[in-house]
C-alpha cells in the first residue's frame, strides 16, 4: 500500500513542513477510505467530514504561515465513541445514548485538537465498552479488516479496525480489561495502555472508575509515542490523574534493547489452557528476536493469572453496575444482550468481596511494580493467545473473555502495549504484550520499537485496505 495513508505521523509531519504533503489531501484520502470501506467494516459510527476538511484547511494555512502546533498538526485521527466530542453525537454504541451530543470535548480529544490534529469522526465501540458485538446496538458492530467474518476485538473495535485498514494512523481507545490491547492484538496494530493516571479519563464515559485507562491504537510504536506526547499529562479535574512528570516518549525509540533485562511471564500460557500453538510459537519467536537484539530474557514468576482475573472482574463488575443499574432496571431493552447481561452480573458481587478485591489489588500491584519489575526493565506477557473469532461463533456466556490475557495490568495499573508478532496460517494477526514499571512508558516504547525494527510485520496490510488503496489510485 503505497499511498498517503501509509505514511507515519512523523513522515506526515515532515511532509507538511517541507511543503511536499498537504493536510487537506491526507484528510480527503482518509475520508475517501472511510467511504470505501465503512459498508463492510463499520469502523466509524459518525464521520465529521466537513469539520475535518475545515480543520485540515486551517492546519495547512497555519503551517504555511509558520504557526506550528506540534507533531499532530494536520494529522487525522479517530475517536472511540465513548469519548465526549463537542457538538458530535456520542452514543457509546447504545440506544441508551442515541441522542447524546456533548457540549465539551474529552480532555485528551481537546489536547489533540489544541495540537492541530484533525478529527475524522467517532469510531465504533462495543456498547458501553463491555460485553460483546451485537446486532442490537445503535450502530452495527465493527468488523475485522483482515477478514470481515471475524471480530476485530473490543471494546475499541472501530479504532482497531480503522487503523489496520489504513484509514488513520491513530485512533483513541480505552482499556478497562484489555479494550485497547485486545483490538490491537486481533487487528495487528499497536495498542498502548499507559499507566493508570497518565492520561486523563475526563469526558470519557466510565466503565470502571478504578480500571479505565485511555490511550492510542496506532500502526507503529512511533505513532503511539507521538500521540502519548500530546495526550499524557496531569489533569487536576480527573481525580485519578497523576501529577508525575512525563518525558519525550520518542526519545528512546532507537536505543534498542541491548543490555536490558526482560522477564517473560510464561506460566500464564499453560494456565490459559486453550492457547493456539501458532500464537505461542509466534510469542516465543518474538522473544528470540529480543534476545538476538541484545536483551536478556528470563522467566519471571508472577501469581497465577486466575488470581489477577478474579481480582479484576470483581472490581469492574460492581463499578459498572453502579453506573448502569437504573437503566438496567427501568429500560433494559435498550441494551444489546451481551452488554446487558455482562452489566447485570455486577449485581452478583457483595460489597465485602469488592473490598477484598481492592485489598488483593494492592498486593498484586506491589508484586508487579515493586517486586518483579524491581528485577527487570520490562516484562513480556501473552496478549491474546488466540486469533480473532468469527461473528457466527460468538460466545453465549456473558463472562467469556476468549483468550485475552490483558486484565492483570489493568489491576496493577502498569503501562502495557500490544504489538503484532506475525500472522497465523489463517491470515489473522498474532500479538504479545510489553509491560513496564509504573510511569515508565518510555521503556515499553523502547522495547516495542526495537522489536518492530527487527521485524517486517508492518509491511503487511489487510487485503481490504489494499483494495481500497488501489481503487483510490
Amino acid at each position, binding site marked *: 500500500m503505497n499511498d498517503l495513508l501509509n505514511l507515519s505521523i512523523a513522515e506526515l509531519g515532515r511532509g507538511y513542513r517541507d511543503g511536499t504533503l498537504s493536510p487537506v489531501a491526507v484528510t480527503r484520502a482518509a475520508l475517501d477510505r472511510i467511504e470505501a470501506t465503512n459498508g463492510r467494516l463499520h469502523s466509524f459510527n459518525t464521520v465529521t467530514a466537513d469539520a475535518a476538511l475545515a480543520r485540515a484547511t486551517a492546519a495547512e494555512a497555519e503551517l504555511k504561515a509558520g504557526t506550528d502546533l506540534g507533531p499532530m498538526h494536520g494529522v487525522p485521527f479517530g475517536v472511540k465513541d465513548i469519548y465526549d466530542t463537542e457538538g458530535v453525537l456520542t452514543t457509546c454504541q447504545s440506544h441508551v445514548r442515541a441522542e447524546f451530543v456533548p457540549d465539551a470535548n474529552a480532555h485528551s480529544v481537546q489536547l489533540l485538537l489544541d495540537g492541530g490534529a484533525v478529527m475524522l469522526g467517532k469510531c465504533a465501540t462495543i456498547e458501553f465498552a463491555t460485553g460483546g458485538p451485537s446486532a442490537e446496538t445503535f450502530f452495527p458492530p465493527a468488523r475485522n479488516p483482515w477478514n470481515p467474518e471475524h471480530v476485530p476485538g473490543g471494546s475499541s473495535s472501530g479504532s482497531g479496525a480503522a487503523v489496520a485498514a489504513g484509514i488513520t494512523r491513530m485512533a483513541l481507545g480505552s482499556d478497562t480489561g484489555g479494550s485497547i490491547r485486545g483490538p490491537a492484538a486481533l487487528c495487528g496494530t499497536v495498542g498502548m495502555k499507559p499507566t493508570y493516571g497518565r492520561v486523563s479519563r475526563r469526558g470519557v464515559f466510565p466503565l470502571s472508575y*478504578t480500571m479505565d485507562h485511555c490511550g492510542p491504537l496506532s500502526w507503529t510504536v512511533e505513532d503511539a509515542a507521538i500521540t502519548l506526547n500530546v495526550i499524557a499529562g496531569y489533569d487536576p479535574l480527573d481525580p485519578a490523574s497523576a501529577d508525575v512528570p512525563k518525558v519525550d516518549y520518542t526519545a528512546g525509540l532507537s536505543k534498542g534493547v541491548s543490555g536490558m533485562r526482560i522477564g517473560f511471564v510464561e506460566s500464564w500460557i499453560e494456565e490459559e489452557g486453550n492457547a493456539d500453538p501458532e500464537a505461542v510459537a509466534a510469542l516465543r519467536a518474538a522473544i528470540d528476536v529480543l534476545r538476538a537484539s541484545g536483551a536478556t530474557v528470563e522467566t519471571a514468576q508472577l501469581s497465577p493469572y486466575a488470581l489477577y482475573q478474579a481480582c479484576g472482574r470483581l472490581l469492574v463488575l460492581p463499578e459498572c453496575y453502579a453506573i448502569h443499574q437504573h437503566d438496567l432496571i427501568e429500560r433494559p431493552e435498550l441494551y444489546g444482550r451481551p452488554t446487558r*447481561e455482562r452489566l*447485570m452480573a455486577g*449485581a452478583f458481587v457483595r460489597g465485602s468481596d469488592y473490598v477484598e478485591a*481492592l*485489598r488483593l489489588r494492592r498486593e498484586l500491584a506491589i508484586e508487579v511494580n515493586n517486586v518483579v519489575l524491581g528485577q527487570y526493565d520490562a516484562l513480556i506477557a501473552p496478549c491474546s493467545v488466540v486469533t480473532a473469532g468469527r461473528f457466527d461463533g460468538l460466545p453465549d456466556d456473558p*463472562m467469556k473473555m476468549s483468550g485475552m490475557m490483558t486484565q492483570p495490568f489493568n489491576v496493577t495499573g502498569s503501562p502495557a502495549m500490544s504489538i503484532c508478532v506475525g500472522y497465523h496460517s489463517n491470515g489473522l494477526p498474532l500479538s504479545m504484550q510489553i509491560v513496564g514499571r509504573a510511569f515508565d512508558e518510555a521503556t515499553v516504547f523502547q522495547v516495542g520499537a526495537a522489536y518492530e525494527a527487527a521485524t517486517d510485520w508492518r509491511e503487511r496490510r489487510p487485503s481490504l485496505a489494499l483494495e481500497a488503496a488501489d481503487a483510490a489510485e
Partner: protein
Amino acid sequence: MDDAALRRQYDGLIERAGLRIPQDRNETMFNAYKQVAAWTEIVRTRRPAAAEPANAYALTTVDRLSEPGTGGAL
C-alpha cells in the same frame, strides 16, 4: 456449595436488584452467577486488618475537584 443453594442465592439477588431476566436467558445468567461466586472464593483470604484496599480514600485528591475556579465536579 451445591447448585440448589447457589440457585436460591441467585434468585434472591435478581429479585432484590429488581432485574428482569428473560426465561430463556435465566440459565445463562445463573451460570454467570456461579462464575462470579467462584471468583469471590479466590479473593476471600484472611488478611490482617491493616491490609488496606488499593484505593484508600484521599481527601487531597477529592478536594482538588472542588477548589474555587477549577470548574470541578463536586
